[in-house]
């Protein structure tokens, strides 16, 4: 019951933050609300026992992307343009897709169900072999760094490439502000 109350409260907060962030026309407050949204997401991940994901979400989603948004905000106007388009069609599409997603979620296995398909594949192998193979208690690190070392190498190269791409786009030396 307590768990249900906590999760319900967090989801409720998420919904409120999302609505306020969409309604707000000040870009600064939208950016800060996006950070708060990520932080609440991180708390939900903690309550789902996914500490590593929660850590990443808190550090990247709530911390760094907020700072990057603020850095990028210098080039934007302070307020959003208010557009009075006809939003009926968008509303219908969003409502329809939302209903479909909720309908599809009834087919998902219950959270923590040991018989769920995802726990029948390679999961048991990792759980029983990480300690004998590597002698480390954190399964996530074991899978990420060793069993799936190729994937992590790929991710690192993706991040590197992203940095390189931004460097090529913005860092050509002509448009830089050297005096700040």
């Amino acid at each position, binding site marked *: 019951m307590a768990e249900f109350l906590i999760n319900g409260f967090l989801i409720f907060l998420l919904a409120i933050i999302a609505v306020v962030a969409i309604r707000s026309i000040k870009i600064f407050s939208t950016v800060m609300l996006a950070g708060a949204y990520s932080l609440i997401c991180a708390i939900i991940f903690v309550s789902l026992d996914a500490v590593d994901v929660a850590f990443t979400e808190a550090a990247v989603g709530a911390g760094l992307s907020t700072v990057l948004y603020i850095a990028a905000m210098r080039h934007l106007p302070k307020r959003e343009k208010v557009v009075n388009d006809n939003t009926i069609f968008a509303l219908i599409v969003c409502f329809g897709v939302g209903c479909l997603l909720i309908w599809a979620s009834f087919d998902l296995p219950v959270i923590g169900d040991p018989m769920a398909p995802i726990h029948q594949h390679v999961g048991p192998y990792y759980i029983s072999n990480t300690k004998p193979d590597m002698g480390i208690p954190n399964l996530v690190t074991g899978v990420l760094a060793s069993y799936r*070392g190729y994937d992590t190498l790929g991710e690192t190269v993706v991040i590197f490439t992203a940095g390189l791409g931004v460097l090529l786009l913005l860092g050509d030396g002509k448009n830089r502000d050297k005096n700040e």
Partner: protein
Amino acid sequence: MNDDPILRVCTKIIVGPIILFGLYVQFHGDYGPGGGFQAGVIVAAGFILHSLIFGLKEGRKLISEKLNLFIMILGVILYGGVGLVSIYYDAEYLNYSILAHDTKHGQHIGILLIEFGVGLTVAGVMLILFHLFSSWQGKDK
């Protein structure tokens, strides 16, 4: 650049512990939550906080753009290099078991090294992203 003395003093106090916590997350990734990715972001956040308060120029005095590029390249090379070392010792690419006499010990060393590589790359990329975004002047100026 911020002239508020409270922010400046607090930043001076807090930047060190943030970076120290990043290193803790980096090297305790095998035992607790965290790892190279999170650690890189935390260390970069420490330096970004410094640059936010004391200005980009001061931040570039700590880590110059060349050093920053070097760090992000070194991370990828370290990761890939560990794989090449295991090929050199007649094992599969990125098979760390060969890196020491004991399989477990080898895995430990391998995981530590590649997590450090990930941390370096992530920290370097995040820092350079921040500096590029905030020092960009726009096309029409």
